[in-house]
C-alpha cells in the first residue's frame, strides 16, 4: 500500500530536485501513428504523400489500380488521424471524383472498417488494403452511388465503360468527372 501522506511530506521538501522537463511527452496517438507509418507495407499500386513530414497525422494515399475496372486511374485519398486514434478511426475522404458504387460525389467512402466496424487493433495498413479492395471488387449491395450500383448489377459491360469514361474525363449520365488517368 502506498502511503501518500508520508511520502508527500518528503516530496514537499525535495520538490526542487524534481527533474524539470519542459518537453511535452508524445501523445498516445502519436506513439501509435509513428508505429503505423513506420510499418506501412504498401502494395505496389499505392503510394503516400506527406505535405508536412513532421505531421504524421495528416497525409494522402494515392491508389493506381493495375487490374480490374479501375485500371489506369489514379485516385487520391486524404487521411486525417485524430487525437483519439486508435480509439476512433481516421477520417478518410476520396479527393478524386470517381464513378464508384461505394464512393459518393462528396468523396465519402463506404467502407465498414472506416465507421461501424473500426477496431483499435486495425491499422492504417488495414485501411489501405480495404480501399484497394474497393477498386478491385466494388460492392453494389450497399451503395452510396445508387446509379453506379444499379449499372454494375444490371450491365457489367456498361459499368466498365462508364468507369473508363469517368477516368478519362467526361459525363456519365449528367455528372461530369474530371480526368484522373495515371
Amino acid at each position, binding site marked *: *500500500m*502506498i*502511503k*501518500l*501522506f*508520508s*511520502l*508527500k*511530506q*518528503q*516530496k*514537499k521538501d*525535495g520538490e526542487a530536485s*524534481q*527533474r*524539470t*522537463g*519542459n*518537453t*511535452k*511527452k*508524445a*501523445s*498516445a496517438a*502519436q*506513439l*501509435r501513428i*509513428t*508505429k503505423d*507509418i*513506420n*510499418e*506501412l507495407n504498401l502494395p505496389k499500386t499505392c*503510394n*503516400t*504523400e*506527406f505535405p508536412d*513530414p*513532421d*505531421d*504524421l*497525422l495528416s497525409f494522402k494515399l494515392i491508389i493506381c489500380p493495375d487490374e480490374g475496372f479501375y485500371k489506369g486511374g489514379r485516385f487520391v485519398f486524404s487521411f486525417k488521424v485524430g*487525437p*483519439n486514434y486508435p*480509439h*476512433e478511426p481516421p477520417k478518410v475522404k476520396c479527393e478524386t471524383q470517381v464513378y464508384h458504387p*461505394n464512393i*459518393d460525389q*462528396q468523396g*465519402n*467512402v*463506404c467502407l*465498414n472498417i472506416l*465507421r*461501424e466496424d473500426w477496431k*483499435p487493433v486495425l491499422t492504417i495498413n488495414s485501411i489501405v488494403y480495404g480501399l484497394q479492395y474497393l477498386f478491385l471488387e466494388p460492392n453494389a449491395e*450497399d*451503395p*452510396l452511388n*445508387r446509379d453506379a450500383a444499379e449499372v454494375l448489377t444490371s450491365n457489367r459491360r456498361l459499368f466498365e465503360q462508364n468507369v473508363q469514361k469517368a477516368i478519362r474525363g467526361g459525363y456519365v449520365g449528367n455528372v461530369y468527372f474530371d480526368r484522373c488517368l495515371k
Partner: protein
Amino acid sequence: MDETKESLQKRWTHLRKVLERPGPFSHPEFEPSPDILDFILSSCKLLIIGAGGLGCELLKDLAMMGFKHIHIIDMDVIDLSNLNRQFLFRHKDIGVSKAEVAAKYVNGRIQGCQVVPHYCTIQEKDEEFYRQFHVIVCGLDSIPARRWINGMVVSLLNYDDAGILDQSSIIPLVDGGTEGFKGNARVVLPGITACVECTLDLYPPQVTYPLCTIANTPRLPEHCIEYVKLVQWPKENPFGVALDGDDAQHLMWLHEKAVERASQFNIQGVTFRLVQGVVKNIIPAVASTNAVVAAVCATEVFKLATSCCTPLNNFMVFNDVDGIYTYTYEAERKENCIVCCNVPQMLSIEDPGKMKLSDIIEILCSDPKFQMKNPGLTTTINGSNKTLYIPTIEAIEKRTRENLNKTLQDLGLNDGQEIVVADITTPTSLIIKLTFKTVDIEMG
C-alpha cells in the same frame, strides 16, 4: 490561525474518529495520528478536472470533507440546460465560466476553503502545474481528455537508473464517469495499477451507422439526421462555416432538412431535441447518478490522501437502471500498454554536439539491448511533433534524410528529450530518453 486549533473544532470530530484511531476497516499499516487531519486541512492539494455534473458534486463533497486547497479546471461556460443538476450555478451565471462560478460559490459558502479556478482546457497546463497536486480527480465526459490527463500523470513518474519507480512521483488519478443511470469510478495509481490506456477498449465505441444505410435505406430518425449532418451540410454549406452543434440556427437548419428527408422515407420521430442529441452526442444526465459516483470518488480521494483505508482496487461499476447494482473488480494492467508500460529507456549521450542522429540509429540497431532492424524516429519539441527519420516511407525518407548527418544539438534535442522509436522488432513504439553526460550549466 493556528492549524492545530482548527483541527480541534467540533466541525471535524467525525473525521478525527476515523483518522485518530484504528478501526475494523483501517489498513493494517495505518498509523492513526492528529497530523493526518492537519495535512488534509492545511497542505493537501487537489485538482478537480471538470466543473460539470460530476465536478459540482466533487467540489462540494471534497470541500465539505475538509480539503482546503482545491484547484478546479473547466473549459466550458454555463448553459441553461446545466442548471437542473449543476447546483453551484444559477440563472444569472449563464454564459460565465463554470470553474470560476463554482469556485466563487464554494469559497463563499465553506469557511476557509480556497478553491482556485482555471478557465481553460487541460492541455493548456504543463507538467509543472500538474506536479503540484497530491491527488487528481476527474469528472469528465470525454475519452480524449481522460487519455490526455492519464498520459500526463504517467509522464510525471520518475524512475531511477535501475528502472525502479520513485513512489513519491506518483499522483493518483481518481476518475468518475456517468451515462444516464449508469456510472463508474476508478482509481489509477500510475505505474502501479491499470491506467486509462490499459483499459481503453472498455469504452463503448461511438454509435455510428453504416454510411450506405444512411444514404440509401434510412430506417431510423437518427439515420435522417446523420445524413443531413454528413452529406447535406458539407454539400450545401448553408452558413458558409463548419457545423456548430451549439448554434441554434445550425440546428434549426438540420432539423428542417432532416424532417424533409424523414418524410420522403416515411420515418416518424425527427424532433428538434433528437437533432440536438444526435449532433452533440447528448446522453441524458441523471443528477442522482452523478451524486453517487462523485461520493465514491471523493471517498477514494480521502482514502488516498490519508492512507486510512485501502483504496478501491480499482474499478467500480454502478447501475440503477432497474434496482441498484454495483460491482468492483481489479482492472489489470496491459502488458504492453503504450502509455504506462512504456517506461522510457535511458540512452546516455557523451557529447550532443558531436553525436549525430545516424549514430543514435546505429546504437539502436547494434546495441544488444535494442537490436532493431529499421527504426523510425519522431519526437515532440515545444509541444509540436517532429519527424526525425522514417526510413520505410519514401515520401518522408527523402525529406528527413538530411537529419541523419545533423548533431543532436542541431536538431534541437535536449537533455531529457524523449524520442519515439518504432521498429518491427517491438509490438509498440518505444520511448528513448536521452541523457547527456556533460551538461553545461553555465550556458543555460
